[in-house]
C-alpha cells in the first residue's frame, strides 16, 4: 500500500518538480515569485488537450503544451513584467496575480468551465515486483525525464543557459560582462513557460483539465522551489519529488484536502529552519 502510494507520488512529484523548475528559474533570475506560474500550467494543459483531441498523439500534445504555455509566459514578460523592471517588488507581485487571473479568465471564456479529460486509452497495469504500475505512469515519467533533460541541457550546455545562470548569480556582473538582459529574460520566460506547460499537460492527463487546476498547483510548486533552494534547478526537481511523494504517502493519514496544506507547512518549516533550502546558497537575505 505504502509502496503503491510511493509510485503515485513519483509521478506527482515529477509534475511538481517541473512546475517548481519554472518557478525557481523566474524567482532566481527575474527575482520575484511568479504567481502566474500555476495558470501558465493550465494554458499548457488546455493547449495539449486541444492538440491531443485533434491528433491523438501524446508527442504532438506535448509540443502544443510547450508552445502554448511558452507563448503565454513570454507574452506576460513582454507586456507586463518587462515594463515593471526597476519597480517595487510589490508591484511585480500584484501584476503577477493580475496576469494569472487574465490567463485563467481567457481559458474560462474560450474553453468553458466544465471539466475535460484527456481521452487516453485504458491499459492494464503492469506488475513490477508486486507493484501495479500503469503504463501511462511510465510514459509520463518518460515525458518528464525527457523534458527535464532538455531543460538541463539548455541551462548547462548552451551559451544562453550559461548567461541565464550568470544573471542569476549576479545581474550587475553579468551586465558588465556584456550579457544582453533582454535575450536572457526572453529565453528565461520561454523556458519557464515550457516547463510549466509540460507539467500542466501531465497533470491534465493524471487528473482532469479545468481552469482552476493550475492555481491549485501553485502552492506545491512554490513550496518545492523554496525547499529546493531558490534558483537551484536541481533542487526544485528533487524537492518536487520529495513533496509529491510526501503528499501521496500522507494522504491516508491527513486526508485528501490537507495534502495541499502540507505544501504550506513544508514551506513554512523550510523558511524558518533552513531558508536557503536543500541546494540553495546562503544569500544573506530571505
Amino acid at each position, binding site marked *: 500500500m505504502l509502496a503503491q502510494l510511493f509510485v503515485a507520488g513519483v509521478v506527482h512529484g515529477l509534475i511538481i518538480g517541473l512546475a517548481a523548475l519554472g518557478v525557481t528559474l523566474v524567482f532566481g533570475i527575474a527575482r520575484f515569485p511568479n*504567481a502566474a506560474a500555476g495558470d501558465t500550467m493550465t494554458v499548457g494543459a488546455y493547449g495539449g488537450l486541444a492538440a491531443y483531441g485533434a491528433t491523438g498523439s501524446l508527442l504532438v500534445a506535448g509540443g502544443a503544451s510547450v508552445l502554448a504555455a511558452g507563448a503565454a509566459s513570454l507574452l506576460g514578460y513582454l507586456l507586463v513584467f518587462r515594463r515593471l523592471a526597476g519597480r517595487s*517588488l*510589490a508591484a511585480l507581485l500584484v501584476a503577477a496575480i*493580475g*496576469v494569472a487571473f487574465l490567463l485563467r479568465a481567457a481559458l474560462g471564456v474560450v474553453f468553458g*468551465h466544465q471539466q475535460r479529460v484527456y481521452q487516453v486509452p485504458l491499459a492494464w497495469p503492469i506488475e513490477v515486483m508486486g507493484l501495479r504500475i500503469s503504463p501511462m505512469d511510465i510514459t509520463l515519467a518518460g515525458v518528464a525525464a525527457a523534458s527535464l533533460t532538455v531543460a538541463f541541457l539548455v541551462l548547462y550546455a548552451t551559451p544562453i543557459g550559461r548567461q541565464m545562470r550568470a544573471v542569476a548569480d549576479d545581474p550587475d556582473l553579468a551586465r558588465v560582462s556584456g550579457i544582453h538582459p533582454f535575450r536572457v529574460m526572453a529565453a528565461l520566460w520561454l523556458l519557464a513557460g515550457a516547463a510549466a506547460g509540460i507539467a500542466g499537460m501531465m497533470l491534465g492527463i493524471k487528473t482532469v483539465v479545468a481552469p482552476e487546476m493550475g492555481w491549485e498547483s501553485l502552492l506545491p510548486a*512554490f513550496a518545492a522551489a523554496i525547499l529546493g533552494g531558490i534558483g537551484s534547478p536541481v533542487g526544485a526537481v528533487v524537492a518536487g519529488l520529495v513533496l509529491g511523494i510526501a503528499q501521496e504517502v500522507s494522504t491516508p493519514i491527513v486526508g485528501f484536502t490537507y495534502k495541499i496544506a502540507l505544501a504550506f507547512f513544508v*514551506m513554512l518549516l523550510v523558511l524558518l529552519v533552513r531558508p536557503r533550502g536543500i541546494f540553495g546558497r546562503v544569500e544573506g537575505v*530571505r
Partner: protein
Amino acid sequence: MTAYLLAIGIMAAIYVLLTLGLTLQYGLTGLVNFGHVGFFAIGAYASALLSLQGVPLPLTFLAAALAAAIAAWPIGLVALRLREDYFAVVTLGFGETVRLAITSEGWLTNGVQGIPGIPRLFSAMPVGLPEALATFAVIALACTVAALMLRRIAASPFGRVIGAIRDNEDALKALGKDPARFKLQVMMLGSALAGIAGAFYGHYITYLSPDQFIPLVTFYAWMAMIMGGVGRVSGAVVGAALLMAFLEGTRFLRDFIPGVSEVEMASVRLGAVGLALVLFTLFRPQGLMGDYRK
C-alpha cells in the same frame, strides 16, 4: 430600488472594512498580505458559529475580531522575519489553508454544505426596508470608526514608525527601532478588521460555505485599495465603492449581452479584476486619488 441600493451599500461597506485592514497593512506599512481572505473567513465563521450557540451578537463580533487577530499572530511571528516576496507567498498559502481547513473540518464548519440560518444583525425586526437600513447604518458606523481610527494611527508616532517601515526599513533599524514588533501589531490589527468585516458578511448573507472565501476575495480588496489609492484611508472608501459598481455593473452587462451564462460572466469578472490589477500597477500605481510622491 431602494432595497437594491441598500443591499449594494451594505456589501460596499463590508468591502470598505476589508480594504481598510489592507490599507493599514500594505498602504501604511508595506506588508504584502495575499491571504486577507483567510482572516475574513475566520471572523465570519467565528461569529456565525458562536451566534448559533446563542451568544449575543456584540460579543460574537468581539470574538470574530479576536479570532482573526489571534490567527494573525503566529503568521505574523513566522512570516514577518521574511523578505516581502516570501511573506506574500506564505500569506497566500495561509489563505488557501484556511479554506481547506473549513472544507475538511465538517464537525465544526459543516464542510462544503455550509452553515445556513445565521441570525441577522437585527433578528427581532422583520426582514424589510427598515431592517436593511438599520444594518447599513451599523456597518457604515463601523466603517467610520475604523476609518477615523486609521487616520489617528497614521498621524500618531506609531504611524510614523510604520510609515518608515514601508519607506526604508533598514534606516529604521539603524535608528534602533524593531520593525518586527510593529509589523506584528499591524498584522493583527488589520486582520481584526478583516475578521469584523467577515462577521458582518456572515450575519448579512446568513449563509457561509468555503467557496465564498476563494483567493479572489483577497484581490477584490487589493483592487479596491489600488483603485482608490494606496496608503490613503479615503482611497479605501472610494475604491470599495468603485469595486461594488464594477461587480454590479457586470451583472447588468449580462442583461444586455444575450447568451452569456453566469459561469462565463464569472470568467469575465475574473479577467477584469486581473486586467485592472495589471493596468493600475503599470500605468497608475498611485491609484485614482493616491499620493503621487509614494
